[in-house]
């Protein structure tokens, strides 16, 4: 392993919007979890402090990982994939069974660890690696996909058998945009699109569910969950309870929410899994439409700054990993929020950075660390990064405007005085060029022509 090298250009290419979004979401998650534990008394204080520990660890690990060039992962792609496979096998034989599924490895005083979470990142790296070692001039053909997808199906199958349909689907869906971004041949693309249309039609209208049930790919409780998703009111006290209560929690937040620590659905235990999968419902109850929309906008900002990294990344490996991380986060956010608001059947997928859970939090940080890492090192592929690319995030007005909204509301919440009384806030609001705070403003210098283009 080579010595970590730090270059001043790395700092220039550091994605500050991504960091701020991340910090915002971490804060929201901690506040939400504090409300959850605060309402229940000191006994469950443990949960909050543990989450703090996870977040902190995740943050430190992700920060530390920035010192290493992500390209060394090319060497690590196979070993990581095999590590993930080994962990999943270990779960199969040494795992802890909770609620009838075998997903966790016991970790002594740290509780338990869910290997399928880091496997998501491993799978992204692995897929990015396999698709970037070769050049495909005309795009990927079926035979090129055979090996990557075949290998990917191994962990997916193992996870499906735990059983953990949520994570299995999550990995499968995450792979989609990676393949898409690696360029597919038109016929492959058309085949995939057809599959996306045909498979759900077969599943939900032509008895595909029963076929899968007979062949034990899915379990009766999956069908049941699907039925409940369609008609939660039919069984409001039994299995439809979760979704009915979750909708009540979100709806009762109305515009401004019921207030911090005042959400009765969450406080009195009517909202199931209010600290994990249904954390967003608890947040929406206490902070209302304003709060939940703000959190969604921060997520959007995060994704947007991640897209910037994708777009600007210097090599295909990095670009594909970045797409994979974006896809992983986006799928998770979309499925979770749709699930708690009753738009999607209940599958156990946590909301990144808001839901409580060590494995999931660490995985999210790993992914985000990779993103920042890729974004920072794009100068390696440029002759003059300043000219070619003034600032990674500056090309992304949406991300910036979302940041401005958040910052502005922060000002209005924090102080009623004039903004220019507080210079640091003035910067946040007025200066689009935040890097200016961290170094000489090179974006203003005159562009140089590159000798290579």
């Amino acid at each position, binding site marked *: 392993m080579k010595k970590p090298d730090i270059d001043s250009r790395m700092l220039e290419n550091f994605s500050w919007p991504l960091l701020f979004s991340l910090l915002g979401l971490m804060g929201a998650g901690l506040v939400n979890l504090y409300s959850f534990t605060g309402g229940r008394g000191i006994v469950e204080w443990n949960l909050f402090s543990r989450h703090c520990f996870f977040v902190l660890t995740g943050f430190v690990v992700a920060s530390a990982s920035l010192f290493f060039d992500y390209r060394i992962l090319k060497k690590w792609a196979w070993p990581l994939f095999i590590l993930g496979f080994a962990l999943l096998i270990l779960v199969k034989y040494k795992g802890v069974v909770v609620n009838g599924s075998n997903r966790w490895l016991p970790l002594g005083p740290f509780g338990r660890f869910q290997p399928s979470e880091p496997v998501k990142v491993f799978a992204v790296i692995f897929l990015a690696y396999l698709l*970037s070692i070769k*050049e495909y*001039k005309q795009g990927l053909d079926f035979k090129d996909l055979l090996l990557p997808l075949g290998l990917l199906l191994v962990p997916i199958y193992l996870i499906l058998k735990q059983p953990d349909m949520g994570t299995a689907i999550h990995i499968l869906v995450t792979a989609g*945009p990676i393949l*898409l*971004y690696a*360029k597919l041949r038109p016929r492959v693309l058309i085949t995939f699109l057809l599959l996306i249309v045909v498979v759900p039609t077969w599943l939900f209208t032509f008895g595909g569910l029963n076929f899968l049930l007979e062949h034990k790919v899915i379990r009766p409780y999956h069908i049941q969950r699907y039925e409940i998703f369609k008609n939660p009111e039919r069984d409001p006290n039994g299995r439809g309870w979760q979704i009915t*209560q979750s*909708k*009540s*929690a*979100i*709806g*009762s*937040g*109305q*515009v401004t929410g019921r207030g911090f620590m005042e959400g*009765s*659905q969450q406080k*009195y*235990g*009517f909202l199931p899994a209010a600290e994990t999968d249904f954390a967003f419902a608890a947040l*929406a*109850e206490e902070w*209302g*439409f304003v709060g*939940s*929309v703000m959190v*969604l906008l921060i*997520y*959007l900002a995060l*994704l947007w700054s991640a*897209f910037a990294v*994708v*777009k600007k990344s*210097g*090599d*295909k490996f990095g*670009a594909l990993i970045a*797409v994979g991380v*974006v*896809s992983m986060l*986006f799928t998770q956010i*979309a499925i979770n*929020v*749709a699930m708690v*608001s*009753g*738009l999607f059947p209940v599958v156990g997928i946590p909301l990144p950075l808001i839901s409580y859970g060590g494995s999931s939090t660490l995985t999210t940080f790993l992914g985000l660390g990779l993103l920042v890492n890729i974004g920072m090192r794009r100068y390696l*592929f440029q002759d003059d990064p300043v000219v070619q690319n003034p600032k990674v995030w500056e*090309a992304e007005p949406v991300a910036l405007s979302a940041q401005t909204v958040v910052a502005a509301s922060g000002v209005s919440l924090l102080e009623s005085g004039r903004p220019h009384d507080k210079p640091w806030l003035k910067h946040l609001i007025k200066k689009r060029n935040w890097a200016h705070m961290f170094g000489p403003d090179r974006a203003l210098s005159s562009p140089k022509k*590159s000798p290579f*283009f």
Partner: protein
Amino acid sequence: MNEDFYASKEQGQEYYPWELLFLKSLVVCVFVVLLLRLWFLQIAKGDEYLEKSRSNHISQFELPSVRGLILDRENRSLVENEVVFELTVTPKEVKNQDDLLERVANLTNKSKESLAEKLKAFEKSKPYSPSVWVTGLNRADVSRVESQGHRLPGLAVRANSVRRPIQGDFAPHLIGYIGQISKAQLESNDYPGLRQGDLVGQAGLEQSMESFLQGQKGSWMVTVDSNGRILEELQQVSPKPGHNVRLTIDSRLQRVSQALLAEQAGAIVVMDPRNFEILAMASSPMFNLFDFVGGISTERWRALNDDPFTPMQNRAVGGQYPPGSTFKIAVALTALSEGVVVPETEFNCAGALLLGNVPFHCWLKTGHGRINLFNALKYSCDVYFYELGRRMGIERLSTGVREYFGLGRPLGVELKSEQGGLVPDPAWKMRRFKRPWTQGDMLHVAIGQGYMLSTPLQVAQYTAVVANGGTLYRPHLVKEIVDYEGKIVYNAKPEVINKLSLKPEHLRTIQKGLVAVVNEPGGTGRRAALTKVKVAGKTGTSQTVSLDKYKGYTSANRPYKLRDHAWFTAYAPADKPEVVVAVILEHAGGGGTTSAPVAAKMLEAYFNPVIDTNLMPPYQAQPNEPTGWKGDL
């Protein structure tokens, strides 16, 4: 590096593959959908979900009110709200389950297995809130549980009240019973604020006095968590106890009247003629109020309803019979006040009155000869009253008795079972039978037969009007209503319905006639005479069937259902009346022989407070199988 990856990239131009654009649009679309969904849930439907969420964690408990008591005129309670104790258990608070089961099983003599089974069920359904574990504990059990309370966490004792009569066979028709509110009752607007499962009076005074007895429910609003554990109290409204209803009923007289009806279907009404307070009202056969405590069983209910003697019927106000010769009192008074006759008017009784060539017989086949009103009452001469009725006409008679004595309609005694009887007239007959009125109908009505129907209470009414000199009050059972603080809510004042202006000599003639019925040789009611008090009265024997088929039989030889009803109505003391007694014994034969002695005993009990049921034969719930049964029709 992969040069082709950036092949399309030219200087100054951004590399913007369509795939990226697609992914970005996908993200935006999904976020828009999610935002719209949040807008729908939180803003469009926010109020609805807030309500749902509120009803989740706010529970309202009802605090039952204590039902008011029903008291007799001496303020002795006739019903009680018996306190029963229940043992409740909160499963999650139980520390040592085996120990608890052992102790509770010992304390309550229940099997350990059944207790454990119940506890297990509670643990599943409501782990954090108390559930009723053992019911029907008495005070001794309770004190034993409480003495060990510190060793039995999770256990609590709760009091509950059960409506219970003091005596099951005391005036069941008057007191009535309570039961679950019916659907029809809920839909009517008579029971505001009540819900399904609430108990309301379903018969007797419990039913008619419901609005006073009920009281006002309280409520207790608390917040609970999803386990049903009570977290804090939000609001408490104390319940208001119901009012106590004090009756005009004299318990001793009531007991005596019931005892006198033993083994005999019939009714007795004892009333004060000065203000129409009902002192006793018995109807036989009776039912037992204890059957209704905590809900009557279906078999018992069916048995009561299928009983041919209809024990559930309150015959005293709901039984409608031809009043027979007792009606002659009303006819005579009406005729005098209408000026049809004067006391000195005499008619000739030849044993029958010929209408065309149909003879209308007097009960005395040989006839009474020339007879005046006084003697007609004394001997109960039918022909005299036929003649009286013929001269008066049905219109004058029917309007007269309706107006003066309140016949033909319920006067509003506080019982829903009250019936109005029937005073027939030509218009009624046309409506009912589509046939014109005949002179024969008229003659039957004049002696209280035919279509004429009245309840024992109505017979007591016209007797009382004669006794008090012509005033008709509203008969009543409720003397006063007192709220739980002792404030009088309602105090019954005699309510005059009609005041008859009579010449004193007219009234005196009738009163003397009634005295003669009891006291003079040849009077029909001699068996009602008392030694120390002068009694005035009138017998009555009302036929239940025309006699053609049973011409050869006396009443006692006919099938039970076809025998005559025996009436006797009396007041005493004759010169300063204090009490009216009306007696009917169903299918008992002649009034003078069977009912008069009963009335005498009733009057004797009124004047001699020593007499009580301990001197009388025990009450028997059903009349014996009638003797002399000749088979069915």
